[in-house]
């Protein structure tokens, strides 16, 4: 995972702006670029700051309030800064039945996060529980940043985390 730009730096630098405009040709409205634009902002800053909301609103001819309403609907967008490595653990029924809660406990323990949603003191990890990740035969699936990892068990947690300095 790369270091993020500070939230005051613009999201739509030349390169991202070009990507956004290339996507714009796919849709009949600029509003349809909202989810992609929010992803770009999160990629740039690690979360979606008020400054980014303003910028996206301007780019897409929307109001900041509208952008906020949409952004808070989708749980994968962060409205606050999170750890360098963001860990999402599936704990919905099928995983829950097969031991996901033990994986959560192991992750909280090994990352030093302590609580779900809290960032570890070194800023390295944030762990949250999420609803179904859609890999129910591979208990427990987790997402670390964009890496989808299957069949995590409490025993494999330590080695796994070592790959995310």
């Amino acid at each position, binding site marked *: 995972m790369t270091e993020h730009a500070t939230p005051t730096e613009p999201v739509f630098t030349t390169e991202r702006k070009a990507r956004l405009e290339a996507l714009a040709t796919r849709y009949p409205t600029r509003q349809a670029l909202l989810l992609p634009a929010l992803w770009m902002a999160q990629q740039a800053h690690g979360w979606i700051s*008020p400054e980014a*909301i*303003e910028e996206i609103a301007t780019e897409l001819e*929307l*109001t*900041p*309030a*509208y952008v*906020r*309403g*949409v952004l*808070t*609907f989708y*749980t994968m967008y962060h409205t606050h800064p999170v750890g360098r490595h963001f860990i999402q653990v599936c704990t919905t029924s099928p995983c829950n039945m097969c031991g996901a809660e033990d994986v959560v406990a192991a992750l909280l323990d090994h990352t030093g996060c302590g609580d779900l949603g809290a960032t570890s003191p070194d800023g390295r990890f944030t762990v949250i529980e999420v609803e179904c990740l859609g890999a129910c035969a591979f208990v427990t699936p987790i997402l670390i940043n964009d890496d989808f990892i299957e069949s995590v068990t409490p025993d494999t947690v330590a080695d796994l985390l070592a790959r995310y300095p």
Partner: protein
Amino acid sequence: MSDATVSLSIDGMDVTVPKGTMLIEAAKQAGVVVPHYCYHPSLPSPAVCRMCLVEVEKLPKMVPACVTTAGEGQVVHVHSPAAKKAREGVLEFLLINHPLDCPICDQAGECELQDFVFQEGQAGTRYADYPKRFNPVEDFGHDVLYIPNRCILCTRCVRFMDHVAEESVLTVSERGDRATISIDPAHRLDHQWAGNVVDLCPVGSLVSKDFLHKARAWDLDKTASVCPGCTQGCNIMVDTRDEVVVRLRPRPNLEVNRHFICDTGRADYRWMNRGDRLEEAAVRGEQGLEGTAWESTLERVAALVAEGEGAVTVLLGGRVSTESIGWILRLLSGRRVTAAMRVPLGDEVPLAGMANLALRAERAANLHGAQLLGAGADWHAAVASAPDTDLVILVDAPLSDTELAVVARAGAVVQLSTVAEPGLENTAVLAPITSMVEEQGVFINRDGRAQRFLPARTPPGMARPAWWVAANAWALADEARTAPATASEALAALPALDGLTHAQLGFTGRVIAPVAAGGVR
């Protein structure tokens, strides 16, 4: 049955409505109210509150009456056991997180949640053992406070800002039972028409700061009136508590203002409660202006009109009724008259999503009434003509210092005023008149629509409508003359109004004279 209509039965009432009518409106035609929250006739319907679910025979599920088109031969049940249970269920869901703080809520007494729960809800709750959702009160800016704990997420406010004001500053944030209405922290609800969200809110979630804790709804007297703020002529309700006007709210008129008024109009009521009102008539005597009774006041007015032969200037305030303008001009018939209305100018602020609805640049309610009656002269020219006249009749029009100095050079001034203009040494008569919230009368708006307003409070002292003063002075000149007894008679007697009575206007008015939207000179 015709091609343009459908006939159906709603709770046993047969009704025929235009094709495309939604069941909720068709039910109104049948005299059946379908309880609802998110539906509003001036907003798009999201069908989210689920209160208006009704049973339609042969349909597998209950349907929301707000988005279901009435169909030929449908048999609709609004008060069937299933529909009632559905509403009971919704009401219970709406109340589980509601603070039930009616005793301190401004909406109490005019709250649709309270009303429908009282009407068909359950007496108790099955949600007694859980903490309720809590979110702090938020200042949305300008006049609006948001109390999220009372919110039922009907989204009327969001839809108003999105689709009517067309300034999307409100939104639903989050999901599930965490959802609230939110405003972008960097923005305020300062749109000229934003105050309507308070009226649209069916519960006490969006409240007016200006009205906060001022009065209980059941203590208010409500009087149908017309906004005096500009030439749009929005229909309003004047709410008074013990003779004091405490708020103005829109009164629906689909032809004029639908369900809305602007914030300028909404806020402009404090003058109605002025304490420095002129309560006693006075005429100039040896000792200056001396208090007197109406009889001698009217005689002096009649004499002033009869004595002179020179020009007369009539200076009208923007809230002078059609009746009063008409009778003042009739009193002066035979004299050379220059009459004008003072029309302050401001920015025109349209309500984007509604055709022909704006806070108009011309901030005078009865400009078109004045023009119709021949009082459409240039205000500045009219003021400038004062020094060359025998007589100026000043009808509740505030004057600037410069204008005062000019009017002071007229032969004599008759002030028909709510508040005396003390600076005029040449005032011969000072007659206390009622303001528009103390009298019946008619304004004519920019589309030539004559609309009535009714008295909302008792006039102070001996104040009388200006038309009454003018008409009775007029009657003194000739024994054959009889002054009209009521405002309606006063209106009907004016040739330009051609016998029109107040009753004929109803409460939504009538277009009597399409007036070309003339500019103001």
